[in-house]
């Protein structure tokens, strides 16, 4: 079992004929993902990995049921592709694009909300339920990272996810569903918004959060833990504890977050809410064991 996607999720791939689109579509299918077809304007009639390509999402959904859209689309065209998917009635959208204009990402998130849809990304590797299905670009063949199991993983990072997840697996666990929220300042979906899915997932025993300095996503998780709406054990690893004060957004950023966003603040909030924060990736597995033993 898993959240967001599983073997039965019918996935439409937008930008399927591109280099990355076709490459990763094949890998997604290899892992078991039910890719029903793809979209590239002007390429209707072609096939990729045996799946039909359509001019538009509308033409694709007229022929096939689709639950989710996987976007291999350049950042500047992502807003249009997301809007097209939403217009086609698709409620789960993953976009890997790195470099989506900030104001457009705000519009994407707002549009998804008004459609009751969920956009994961951009600037992410995507979503994977090891052994079941994947939307994105994960080297699922590295089994010391992508071993199936009962730990949910949510992350803002790429390479660090491999690092931390390898430690989870090294400790004897496996991954139920890994959700790459993405590293942009405005992700389509926030950590806390994924929690209800993990909460309701019988195959997830605990959740590992891979966060970092900046923003308030980790604090929002702490709030959900504190108010009881999320009740499973949470272990976090946060990058940037010793980071120097880098280039900042000026006063406004700090005002919007009300002084939140420091790693210290995040640790305090998560700990106060009953979570454990690992100082080093290596400690994540032990902390998981500790929490699950309680």
């Amino acid at each position, binding site marked *: 079992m898993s959240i967001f996607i599983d073997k039965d999720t019918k996935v439409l791939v937008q930008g399927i004929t591109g280099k990355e689109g076709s490459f990763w579509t094949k890998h997604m299918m290899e892992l078991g993902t039910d890719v029903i077809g793809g979209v590239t304007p002007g390429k209707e009639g072609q096939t990729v990995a045996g799946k039909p390509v359509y001019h538009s999402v509308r033409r694709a959904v007229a022929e096939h049921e689709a639950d989710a859209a996987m976007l291999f689309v350049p950042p500047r065209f992502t807003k249009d592709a997301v809007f097209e998917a939403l217009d086609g009635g698709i409620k789960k959208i993953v976009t890997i694009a790195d470099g989506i204009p900030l104001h457009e990402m705000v519009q994407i998130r707002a549009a998804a909300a008004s459609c009751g849809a969920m956009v994961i990304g951009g600037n992410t590797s995507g979503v994977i339920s090891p052994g079941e299905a994947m939307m994105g670009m994960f*080297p699922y063949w590295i089994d010391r990272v992508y071993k199936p199991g009962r730990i949910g993983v949510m992350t803002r990072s790429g390479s660090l996810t491999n690092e931390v997840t390898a430690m989870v697996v090294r400790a004897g666990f496996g991954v139920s569903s890994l959700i790459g929220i993405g590293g942009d300042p405005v992700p389509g979906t926030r950590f806390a918004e994924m929690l209800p899915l993990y909460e309701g997932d019988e195959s997830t025993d605990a959740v590992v959060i891979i966060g970092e300095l900046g923003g308030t996503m980790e604090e929002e998780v702490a709030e959900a833990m504190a108010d009881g709406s999320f009740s499973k054990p949470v272990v976090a690893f946060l990058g940037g504890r010793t980071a120097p004060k880098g280039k900042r957004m000026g006063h406004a950023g700090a005002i919007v977050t009300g002084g939140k966003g420091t790693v210290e603040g995040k640790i305090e909030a998560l700990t106060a809410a009953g979570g454990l924060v690992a100082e080093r990736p*290596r400690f994540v597995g032990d902390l998981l064991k500790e929490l699950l033993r309680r």
Partner: protein
Amino acid sequence: MKLFEYQAKEVFKNGGIPIPESKLADSVEEVVDAIETIGLPCVLKSQVLRGGRGKAGLIPFVRTIEEAKAEAKRLFASEHNVKRLLVEEAVNIEKEIYLSVTIDPVAPSAIIIASAEGGVEIESLAVNDPDKIIQEAIDITAGIQPYQANDLAFRLGFTDDIAKQVKKVIFGLYNIFSSYDAELAEINPLFITKEGKVIAGDGKLMIDENSMHRQPNYERTRDYYDSDMEFEAAQEGIPYLQFDGDISLMCAGAGLTTTVYDLINYEGGSIANYLEFGGPNYRKAVRAMELCLQNESKVILIVTFGTIARADVMAEGIVDAMNRLKPDRPIVTCIRGTNEEEAVRILKEAGLDPLYDTEEAVQKAVAIAKGEC
């Protein structure tokens, strides 16, 4: 991309926001010339991108031409890399307002933030007296509505003509924020003068990096960077930060690089430079190593755990870089991910001793830097 004050003010002026009379000067002579137009007293505003210019003494108020010359000389000679001064008329200040527009990622929307108590202490005001901070969410598709600007002006305590001027500034600032794809557009302080005029005392405009293709007016020249190295790295599209420690980082992925940075600090090491060559840069090992070698570091630490970036390609790049650049210092590698077996083979063949565990690699680098091995 953060603009200089003088650039931001130019944008503000074109967007209908009043700014003080001012002239840009890049030498003491030009400062003197500028004062002929601007008059005395006036303010010499150092055009540097760092915050807290006032507290750092970078915005002196000058009353006489002699004082102006002395201060200008001091600033141009300072350690703060001051290339230009904005010579600006001194305004009769009655009141200072804070006003900015940024993004609220949760809502999600744009958000206008204002306070009747502007000035340098705005951030602590936000924490200690949040009721004095006024916020207004703006739908980024529909844009700002007149009633919102109205309401903000009234909530700031203004009526009549000042309210009208403030409303116009709010409208102007939001429209600049929108049309410049800004992360932040800020006026702090916004002066209300004793003569009843509303004038932008400062100007901050940060353009979203991902939208620079729509903002062709600004090019990232050397001026925008603290060091030559950072400028060079930026030209290559390589994320790079300059420090003055012993270990050059050459890692992949912001999260992993930051974590390695933390781990080095935990182990008592120090960092010479932060460098990412992951993602689209994973073929740029030569250029990355060249940058690292320009530092006086004692060791180069390479840590990756690639997803799309193939480990064997990175390993090949590293070996290629070593062959070309003949590095004069040890290299510690910890390369994992897709095709890592092949990567290990390549590195070993090149005489390296590849590690597989990040902490082990960090410890080794720190030990080398400390001369312990």
